[in-house]
């Protein structure tokens, strides 16, 4: 490693960094437990008035502690030390740690308020949303009627119907609505600062992005300062003015957003950027970060990132680098690393090259003919074939309705036809509630369709179940396997891995001996990267990490020798940096075990990774219907359905010029109720280019003339009367014109 500017850089005094008009000045602030375990260490940062500061960190990095510290609300028995100074818009600065209990009570929510991750768990489940607003206003001696008026305004700004929301119990709202109601609740006393701790983590990408757009508007309208804490770097990158990276209880890097994304100086930041699945990056370059962040009791003595850092030197092992300005003349960008220049040189950012490359050469070129041929394989009997399938659920009702009204029917899946071939790969993509999970379960015969038929190699699955079929039902059942979203709950906690796996082996190979079984499990575990296999076989599920559990679930499914595996959001529970690894593994195993994969996801970049690498198709679902289906390549670069474009918009990327660009290409934030889906094209209530014709007529899936796949939108038909009818309220002529309202 050549000598670089690092020695001179680290000479810089540790400064809080310069911001012009700080609202928070945080100096030497730490949080300790039991007097020694530090879960936040010597933090020195300032937060600018009216900025949006995005803070990124892995789980367990201390980022939530930082959030709590801003409200002096560290959970017991943690101790907050240091100096946190709050500058109100007028009046003298407030020393947060010196406030009395009553002053602190007023300070919270009136000056600084907080939005937590789980909106559902932030509301009292037995109290209406409106009561939460009222009691908050009362507790702070505000006039309730005026406060509620303001609350209604806030809710409306968040695209909610105020009366309906205030009169609902928390569980009666969808996750996205709850989260927005919670944001309104946190703003009801008109605070200066909003601290948000993973406020959108539990939501769909599309809802996350929509909320971020709304936040951006609220921030400007009400002159807020927002501290947005997340593990999702690209997500917050679209919103933030400045960004900070927390690693192992300290700030590793902080600076203007564009600097952090385009010119990061800390190896960890650069690795994070490269580990992000990114719609525009060439796939081969996404690299997971090896290893895990340290636990609070075992923080390395030198640089905290040293054990995982590819650039570590002797100096790094001994001296803890201070958070200092990266370049002499630019004090706004600070990083805690001895060798920022080397980092910039040695760790290339993959998305930088992405943009040019994609234009010229498509990285998946060789696979394209395969997609075509597979789609055309109509002569052969497909492995699974859905014909005009509908799944309708009868929903539970309240006591009084039960005796009076007809039961409400949720139309989870409606009129879907789809063929899955041998060794096929299909990703079902859509928002929650679009029916993708139900469709997946129908495909593998776990959910009986209320209408239409599902055939396995030409044999109707449900007829086989009822006892008259050529292929026995048991055989079909074991040929179609599922991996659940949460591997923890799918594995029996009281049985060792060996027992869990041998159960399926006993099913497929009833005649092999104990040793042979053990040998097979052994080699499979090694194959899926769980070495030493002997050790893993004797463990219980709770002794495994999330990724390992998911691997075991995968191994168990594979041991059944299946023809198709449904992976139901199977990687969303796994840490971002591990997702690619698991997806790669699934893809490798697919060809090895000659099975088909059905991959259910709400995340376009995951679906894309999967579909492109495994040469499969992506089926976009909306309110129970497939609205577009085609190869990942075409869907990403030439989306035909307006909804696919929306999903494309919702997928975060790290391109600086497209960042922060505008509102969602949608006229409504929430998905309509699947109990009573809109007439005509189901997307017409949100579609930015909907016209009168879309209200009445229902578009069928039709083959795309100049590309692969099918799409259900009138815009594909140049002769449709759509082109002659009027745009509906709020809609525009061309998608490009749409800017939201």
């Amino acid at each position, binding site marked *: 490693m050549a000598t670089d500017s690092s020695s001179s850089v680290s000479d810089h005094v540790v400064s809080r960094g310069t911001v012009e008009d700080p609202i928070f000045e945080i100096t030497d602030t730490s949080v300790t437990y039991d007097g020694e375990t530090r879960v936040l260490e010597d933090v020195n940062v300032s937060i600018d008035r009216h900025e949006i500061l995005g803070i990124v960190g892995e789980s367990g990095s201390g980022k939530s502690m930082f959030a709590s510290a801003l409200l002096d609300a560290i959970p017991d028995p943690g101790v907050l030390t240091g100096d946190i100074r709050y500058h109100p818009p007028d009046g003298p600065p407030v020393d947060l740690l010196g406030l009395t209990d009553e002053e602190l009570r007023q300070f919270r929510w009136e000056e600084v308020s*907080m939005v*937590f991750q789980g909106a559902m768990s932030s*509301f*009292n489940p037995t109290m209406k949303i409106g009561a939460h607003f009222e009691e*908050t206003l009362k*507790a702070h001696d505000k006039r309730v009627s005026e406060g509620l008026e303001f609350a209604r305004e806030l809710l409306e700004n968040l695209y909610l119907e105020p009366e309906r929301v205030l009169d609902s119990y928390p*569980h*009666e709202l969808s996750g996205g609505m709850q989260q927005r109601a919670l944001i309104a609740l946190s703003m009801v006393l008109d605070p200066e600062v909003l601290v948000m701790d993973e406020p959108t983590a539990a939501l769909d990408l599309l809802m996350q992005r929509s909320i971020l757009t709304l936040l951006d508007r609220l921030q400007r309208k009400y002159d807020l300062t927002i501290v947005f804490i997340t593990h999702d770097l690209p997500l917050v990158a679209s919103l933030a003015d400045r960004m900070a990276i927390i690693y192992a209880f300290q700030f590793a890097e902080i600076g203007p957003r564009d600097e952090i994304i385009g010119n990061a100086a800390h190896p960890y930041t650069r690795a994070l950027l490269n580990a992000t699945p990114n719609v525009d990056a060439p796939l081969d370059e996404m690299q997971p970060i090896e290893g895990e962040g340290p636990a609070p009791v075992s923080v390395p003595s030198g640089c905290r990132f040293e054990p995982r850092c590819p650039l570590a030197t002797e100096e790094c092992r001994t001296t803890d680098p201070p958070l200092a300005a990266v370049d002499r003349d630019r004090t706004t960008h600070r990083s805690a690393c001895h060798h920022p220049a080397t980092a910039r040189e040695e760790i290339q950012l993959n998305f930088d090259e992405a943009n040019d490359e994609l234009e010229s050469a498509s990285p998946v070129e060789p696979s394209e003919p395969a997609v075509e041929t597979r789609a055309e394989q109509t002569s052969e009997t497909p492995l699974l074939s859905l014909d005009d399938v509908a799944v309708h659920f009868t929903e539970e009702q309240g006591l009084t309705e039960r005796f009076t009204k007809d039961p409400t029917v949720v139309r989870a899946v409606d009129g879907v036809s789809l063929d899955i071939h041998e060794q096929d790969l299909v990703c079902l993509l859509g928002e929650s509630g679009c029916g993708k999970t139900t469709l997946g379960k129908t495909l593998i015969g776990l959910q009986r369709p209320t209408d239409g038929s599902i055939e396995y190699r030409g044999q109707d699955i449900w007829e086989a179940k009822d006892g008259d079929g050529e292929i026995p039902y048991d055989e079909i059942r074991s040929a179609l396997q599922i991996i659940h979203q949460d591997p923890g709950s799918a594995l029996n906690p009281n049985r060792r891995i060996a027992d869990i796996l041998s159960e399926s082996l006993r099913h497929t190979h009833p005649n092999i001996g104990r040793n042979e079984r053990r040998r097979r499990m052994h080699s499979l575990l090694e194959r899926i990267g769980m070495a030493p296999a002997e050790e893993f076989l004797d463990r219980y599920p709770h002794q495994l990490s999330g990724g390992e559990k998911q691997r075991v679930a995968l191994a168990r499914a594979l041991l059944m020798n299946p023809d198709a595996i449904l992976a139901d959001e199977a990687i969303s529970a796994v840490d971002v940096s591990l997702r690619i690894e698991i997806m790669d593994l699934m893809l490798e195993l697919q060809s090895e075990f000659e099975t088909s994969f059905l991959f259910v996801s709400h995340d376009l970049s995951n679906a894309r990774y999967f579909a492109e690498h495994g040469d499969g198709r992506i089926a976009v679902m909306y309110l129970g219907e497939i609205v577009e289906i085609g190869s990942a390549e075409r869907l990403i670069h030439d989306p035909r359905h307006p909804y696919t474009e929306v999903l494309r918009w919702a997928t975060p990327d790290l391109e600086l010029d497209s960042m922060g660009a505008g509102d969602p290409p949608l006229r409504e934030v929430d998905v309509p109720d699947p109990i009573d889906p809109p007439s005509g094209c189901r997307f017409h209530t949100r579609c930015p280019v909907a016209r009168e014709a879309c209200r009445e007529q229902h578009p069928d899936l039709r083959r795309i003339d100049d590309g692969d796949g099918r799409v259900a939108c009138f815009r594909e038909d140049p002769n449709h009367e759509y082109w002659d009818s009027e745009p509906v309220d709020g809609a525009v002529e061309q998608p490009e014109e749409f800017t939201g309202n």
Partner: protein
Amino acid sequence: MNYYLKRTAQIPLTILAVATLTFGLIRLLPGGPFTQLRLELLQQGVPAEQVDARIEALQNIRPDAPLWQQYLDYMVGVAQLDLGQSISLNEPVIDVLARSLPWTVFLVVTSTILMFVIGVVIGALQAYWEGSRFDRITSGGSIFLLSVPYYIFAVIFLFFLAFQLQLFPTGNAVARGVDASLSLAYFSSVLHHATLPILAFTISGIGSTALNMRGNGIQVLGEEYVEVARLRGLSNNRIATRYVARNAILPMYTGLLLLIGFRLGGTVVLEEIFSYPGLGYYMIQAVNANDYPLMMGCFLVITVTLVVGVYIADLTYGLIDPRISAGDSDEY
């Protein structure tokens, strides 16, 4: 079919099944009530040829009719609240039940409510002071109460407080000579007589209620919404009542109604110990006297109460806890 309709339809079906069972027992048990009754009647000198008629008059059952006929007659009788004649007491079973049931209900309901309130308060305090000395001591106490059956307390109370110290009566529901009226004397006598049974029955249930409440309370206290409520600056009082208590107690509601049903069964021994003239007391009497009609009457009443209790719990839980009323339709 609609869940609630199904649930409602189950009630008469269950009662029918229980009634059928009682019929079967009364009519068919070898050496059962009729052999007994016949013997008794013969001993009383009733002429042999009149015995069947007497039995028919007493039990609305014609021993010589075909079985299905007898069954129908019995069912019609039950529907008209005619449960036959008690053999040992020589009066209609329904009268005995009507006389004894109120006392039992009084015992069970009072003691269950007392037990619930005291247990909840103790458990809530324990949850708030989790790990404190109070918590440790009461937890120990709760486990002790949980492991000692109620009749042990009953016997101890009876022996010391009633027999030795003579503070309380050793039997009956009211003092002899006090007439049922709205007078103070009557009420105080009733209370005086019921104190010990209620006490014994209450104490034994406190342990489990307190432990239950403690667990729920600790769980709710750890919930994020409580933390958020604190940050929002709500008063401790409001958090304790609207947030912690409400969410900790609601899940115990169904259990409470079930408990009332089960404790009704528990009165059998309790009332026997205190010679308290409730349903359980008569049930034991009936067992001792081989008085099947009375026995089955008591059995029928206890079962029906249990079934109805469960039904009400089921039906109202959705109304009481808003979380239940809507199905979870998040992902489909």
